[in-house]
């Protein structure tokens, strides 16, 4: 399952860090963050609960970049 989320982040490197953090979250198969369009595409592992996983993704992203937001 794939979903796209709007995000807000100020710098391109921070977007890269968010991408890494999202990829490392359990339940996420793959993730790409596009800084230019301010979007995060997340591909979930099979059977993963998207909502719960995204909460973790948000938490992990906040850890690497305090000043970011994912609009869930």
């Amino acid at each position: 399952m794939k979903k796209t989320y709007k995000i807000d982040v100020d710098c391109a490197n921070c977007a890269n860090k968010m991408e890494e953090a999202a990829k490392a979250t359990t339940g996420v198969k793959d993730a790409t963050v596009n800084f230019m369009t301010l979007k995060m595409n997340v591909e979930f592992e099979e059977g993963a609960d998207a909502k719960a996983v995204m909460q973790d993704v948000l938490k992990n992203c906040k850890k690497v970049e305090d000043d970011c937001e994912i609009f869930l």
Partner: protein
Amino acid sequence: MNKKQKKVLKRIIVAAVLLVIIGIAGSVVSIPKWLEFLFYLVPYFVIGYDILRKAWKGICNRQMFDENFLMAVATIGAIALGDYKEGVAVMLFYQIGELFQSYAVGKSRRNISDLMDIRPDYANIETDGQMEKVDPDEVEIGTVIIVQPGEKVPIDGVVVEGHSSLNTSALTGESVPREVAVGEEIISGCINISGLLKIRTTKEFGESTVSKILDLVENASSKKSRSENFISRFAHYYTPAVCYGALALAILPPLVRMLFMGLPADWGIWIYRALTFLVISCPCALVISIPLSFFAGIGGASAEGVLVKGSNYLETLAGTRTVVFDKTGTITQGVFEVCGIHGTNCASGSCPVVSGHPVYTKEEEQLLEYAALAECHSTHPISVSLQKAYGRKLDVDRVTDVQEIGGHGVIATVDGHRVAAGNDKLMKKEKIAYRNCSCTGTIVHLAVDGVYAGHILISDMIKPNAAAAMQALKNSGVHRLVMLTGDDDRVAQQVAGEVGITEVHSQLLPADKVSEVEKLLRTREEKSTVAFVGDGINDAPVLSRVDVGIAMGALGSDAAIEAADVVLMDDDPLKIAKAIRIARKCLRIVYENICFAIGIKLLCLFLVTIGIANMWMGIFADVGVMVIAVLNAIRALFVKKL
């Protein structure tokens, strides 16, 4: 500027003014060192409090090597060494750079979304004689919607009332308006210019052209190019490497001087150099300018009616050396047209080839009229082309006793004459002596009352720009042009000769096309890529097999939008060369930025190490390079004159 940016701007101004005042005051009256320190702390905190906070949070979250941390260490270090002014200035310029970057990115985001501003906000429907605005999502198939002059067509449909001209430039980049009248299909996303139109919708909003294109544009550039991946990997190693380098620079040379050379350690000098290292170490310039270049390139291309589905495709497109074409619908128009009427006076073997819109003689007109009337009940593409060439309204009452013979043609009585119109098989069947045409194409022979009257040549027209497009491709460095077609060899060779393609493979089944393309993929040069151009209708397997699949004339063909990597919105083959040139320009800018930014940074690092450059140089290497790289990246947006 948004709120956040305005706030930063205010802080920058306040800090800059304070810095200048303190600087002047310091040179006029002598201030004790401790007081000067306190004075400088004011602008420092005004400009840098958020950076310091973020750096602290980063340390808490064990995310040491981010630019906030680097800036915090460098500036605190400089202040600790007594270089108050430099410490504050580094922070100030860093913030100016960040503000500029955020403004430039925001601006280009808006620019590009303006270019593709085709999303309709509402649809007008008529209820009880009253016009009502509704959400396009709620309009069902078959509803009649009203589009007033100046409004966007929200949903695909067929015109049921009114005529007007449409501006399709947002979709195709084509500035000549398109005329539409009752019965014609019309695609969403166009802007109605002149008259009121009533349209019966044929699709839901979500399935309409405008939604599909918006979806495609919004999801473009989610596929990252090799350059972008290279840069994020580079940033990943570069920053820590420079930090350790700075640490080594601060500790090793003084130790060596002290222990082995018997010189004074000069800790202050080396720590200052190490701090300058940290200022340079921020990878911002690279990390922002590369995706920005691609984004601008994709945006500029879409304004020209070329949709690129991701920055990786822009990269592949730039390396194209071989372009493979499907004939029908790509080089030719894919619609049949009468291109010659050859009466009995036309001697065998020397039929004239006419291009453009010829003027026919009375005899030829008569021939066309007979053919069109005889075939007036048929909807076969050949018959349609005859009717279209005739141009006037057909009086069906003049035709009786129509007899259609499958695979042969039609025999009918027109104005009392027995007219036979069809291929050579029909002539043989009717035992009429006929003459073959010297031109290639589909031939409709005509016999009136059992006597041969001549033939009409029908062929697929070559697109007006096809030959120019091939030349443009050759000029832009594509040296191998190949045409693949399922058509017979004679037709294929003629078309290829006319447009200037030398390599032709004809009589291919769809599966053969794939194997031909695979052969080309195996024999291509190192690092060059193969592009395939098709109209997307039955080319999906080939489109997905090649390096870059380009679909033409996407308006109306969903399959093309799905299967291709690059979509040309209109039918113009000249856009292929343009797309390649746009991609080349974009890639050139990307490489310029990579080389420039990395080069300047390495140079500055070297100069700092040997003690030539100071912290001001470090600020230039960081902020200056970023500003230049961002401005250069925005150049990728301007592709109109390519």
